[in-house]
């Protein structure tokens, strides 16, 4: 994947607050992922419109961190979720 890709959560994949464990979780077919603060921040921005570059830039300004540090982590995180079938990417 590259920064130009536009990812989104497909049907059947959703985030939910787990009231018992007090964490955000990502639920999908046969998969549960417990999200940390960064995971929640990234997934909350997968709207099917923003590219990964735009998402990294946004996170960079919100968390006041250099974009070249954030961007590779964001791509790696989303790519791993794509390989698990939890994220889809709009065809370019």
């Amino acid at each position, binding site marked *: 994947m590259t920064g130009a890709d536009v990812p989104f959560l497909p049907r*059947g994949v959703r985030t939910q607050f787990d009231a018992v464990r007090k964490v955000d*979780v990502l*639920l999908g077919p*046969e998969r549960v992922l417990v999200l940390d603060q960064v995971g929640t921040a990234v997934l909350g921005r997968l709207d099917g419109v923003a590219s990964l570059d735009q998402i990294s830039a946004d996170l960079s300004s919100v968390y006041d961190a250099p974009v070249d540090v954030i961007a590779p982590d964001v791509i790696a995180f989303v790519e791993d979720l794509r*390989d698990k079938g939890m994220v889809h990417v709009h065809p370019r």
Partner: protein
Amino acid sequence: MSIRVDPPMAMLAELTHRCPLACPYCSNPTELLAKETELSTEAWADTFKQAAKLGVLQLHLSGGEPASRRDLVELVAAAREAGLYTNLITSGIGLTERRLHALDEAGLDHVQLSLQGVTAAMADRIGGYKGGFDRKMHVAEIISNIGFPLTLNAVMHRENLDDLPATIDMALRLGARRIEIACVQFQGWALVNRAALQPSRAQVDAAKKTVARAVEALRGRLVIDFVPPDYYSDFPKACMNGWGSTGLNVTPNGTVLPCHAAETIPHLQFDTVTERKLYDIWYDGAAFNAYRGTDWLPELCQGCERRDIDFGGCRCQAMAVLGDASAPDPVCRKSPGRKALNALLAEEVQEVEAPEFVFRR
């Protein structure tokens, strides 16, 4: 020593044992529960609520064939209302277009469709149901049109393991997002047919290569989960990810089990949702605490570096093969029970014709 018990993540609800198919590898018990003993709609709905409150996130609606329950749509609606991610595990038989649309409206999250073979001849023979394959293909098309995320659950064994490449192609053709290549695990009725179902080592080696190639080639297109035939493994599966650690199972009459096959262990005592709260069953039930954690494991396992990886393996397998549920899983190469498993393999896996299947009829 006290064991830290976390809330469960997943619950398998076996809504019914009724099923139009008669697969020789069925892992349900040899004695099935009758319709009259099944929990009511309200009892299931209440169990779903209790499960969500307990911490369950994912609900798998299974059977038998869950579509044999006339109240399936109501049950899905109740599960979603409780906040559960709801997965339907089905053969497709009994699902009409109208019913699938109703399930969509009820909020069903995911469909797992079983596959008995890639041709009508094979599938209908294995399922023991003529015309089943054609109906399944029709159901798959409707599932795809509605847009449900689809997992194809291909149960593989001696007769169809060589069709694995065609099976993966079929998952792509049906628009599945995920395929579960599940080599038969020997529990329940499947034990009756073990010799007929057990693949050969050559078949297993070829299948592993096919899977490894497909995982690479289809990355990002199809998720592939492979459950190997564990008699050929060196180490046991981490069954249930550890007894009483992650998941629970409710049978059609409301009996709550630490795993699907736990009733094969004769000395265990089980609670039912009709008599006790799910919360108390999970934390205090005798059966759940019987093999929880690792303190109960024999000395051999205590000193093993894999102790916290596979937790001594599958209790029901130790029971089935060795007659002792507290022994290390006989799949383990380090365990004394491995000899018995090797003897079974040597005796049952012959190059010549496999024995005929015994169907559940």
